[in-house]
């Protein structure tokens, strides 16, 4: 089996992450319970005639794909694999609202065309003229990890050389309103540094896209090696510690072998206990978190994956993401753990290459 490398990254998030020469040098502050992505100049990447019908999620996906391809110094990939929890939710809302408001008449084609989950992957393929394997995983908060697992299998078995893999989700007004009503979104406005001090249920919602060129050939642009990804639909909190230890053991590692643990804490008092369990399990390991910068969304873990990649490549951990005060001289082995509302858990293990 071949090794698999993260050869490039492309990110659009609530922080200015689309510039690969920077690494969280400048933090975009907010005081809110819903945060939007910091937009690049989309026209620099997508012709205006093509962009005019594209929803934000599609634009974010295409731009991050192009950034990743450029950094990997390749023009084409063998496959495009996308993870998204909600797909093009804004156009879905527009389409359904039009059905209701216009009494099932006067329906226009554009929002309908754009309302499917696989529109992002399809539009990326059209932009890149990529006729290869194109698949979209819609698995809630393990959508991105499912996409990575698919790519990992294909690359390990040498069925493909370069695969574009990413996670993308956009905020939609109506969906956001519903999440506020059912307390999935925090009732109060929060600043990034106060997220984990919050004593309320729910999370700060966000949006973004993170795409990566994964390859079974190491290059001078490589960030890290993907050792393994494991997902669970259900996992009891009591079993989490044992599962984490077992996952590491599968790769001949113990809790003392990690240089960094990156957790998906979102400040929800009802579900952050999962993360606290792992924080205690790895109490001697430096730890980081990121949802205070990205917000919570189904593919927020792709931002965590971006963070881990940057940490390993730059061998630096920005102060803003530190979860504990522990320091280390090197970031060689990094474990990511994420879950959302106690379901759809994932472990991702990366290694310096």
């Amino acid at each position, binding site marked *: 089996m071949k090794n698999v490398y993260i050869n490039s990254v492309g990110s659009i998030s609530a922080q200015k992450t689309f510039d690969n020469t920077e690494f969280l040098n400048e933090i975009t502050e907010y005081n809110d319970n819903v945060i939007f992505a910091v937009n690049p100049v989309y026209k620099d990447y997508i012709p*205006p005639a093509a*962009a*005019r019908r594209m929803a934000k999620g599609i634009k974010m996906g295409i731009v991050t794909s192009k950034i990743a391809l450029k950094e990997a110094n390749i023009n084409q990939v063998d496959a495009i694999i996308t993870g998204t929890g909600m797909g093009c939710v804004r156009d879905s809302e527009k389409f359904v609202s039009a059905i209701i408001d216009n009494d099932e008449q*006067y329906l*226009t084609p*554009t929002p309908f065309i754009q309302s499917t989950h696989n529109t992002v992957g399809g539009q990326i393929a059209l932009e890149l003229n990529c006729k290869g394997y194109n698949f979209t995983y819609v698995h809630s908060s393990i959508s991105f990890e499912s996409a990575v697992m698919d790519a990992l299998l294909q690359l390990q078995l040498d069925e493909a050389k370069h695969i574009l893999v990413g996670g993308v989700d956009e905020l939609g007004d109506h969906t956001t309103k519903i999440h506020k009503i059912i307390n999935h979104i925090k009732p109060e406005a929060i600043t990034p540094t106060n997220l984990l001090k919050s004593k309320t249920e729910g999370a700060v919602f966000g949006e973004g896209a993170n795409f990566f060129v994964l390859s079974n050939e190491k290059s001078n642009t490589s960030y890290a090696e993907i050792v393994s990804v494991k997902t669970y639909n259900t996992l009891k909190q009591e079993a989490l510690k044992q599962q984490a230890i077992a996952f590491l053991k599968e790769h001949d590692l113990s809790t003392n072998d990690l240089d960094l643990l990156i957790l998906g804490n979102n400040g929800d008092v009802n579900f952050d206990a999962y993360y606290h369990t792992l924080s205690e399990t790895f109490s001697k390991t430096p730890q980081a978190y990121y949802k205070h910068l990205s917000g919570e969304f189904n593919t927020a873990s792709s931002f965590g994956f971006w963070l881990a990649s940057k940490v390993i490549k730059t061998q630096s951990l920005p102060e803003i993401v530190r979860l504990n005060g522990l320091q280390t001289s090197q970031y060689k082995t990094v474990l990511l753990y994420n879950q959302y509302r106690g379901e759809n858990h994932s472990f991702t293990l990366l290694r310096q290459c």
Partner: protein
Amino acid sequence: MDALKQELKENLIEQLNLEDMSPEDIANDDMLFGDGLGLDSIDALELIVMLDKNYGIKLTDPKEGRAIFESINTMAAYISEHRTK
């Protein structure tokens, strides 16, 4: 008629997401499809729905659309003659 033409230009920009365009950028006799504004077949469907929704005009023969949607002038003339609301 001038008010209708202005309204059509504003609706066109909004319905078809013609970003970075203002009504002043569209001349009354500019070709809407092809070399002019460069609208395509999906836009044509949007325009047919707009005619029905805003002016109560149902286009039953798609061939009619080609002449009606030639320019703002032709659209305004057709709407003035056939509108039911």
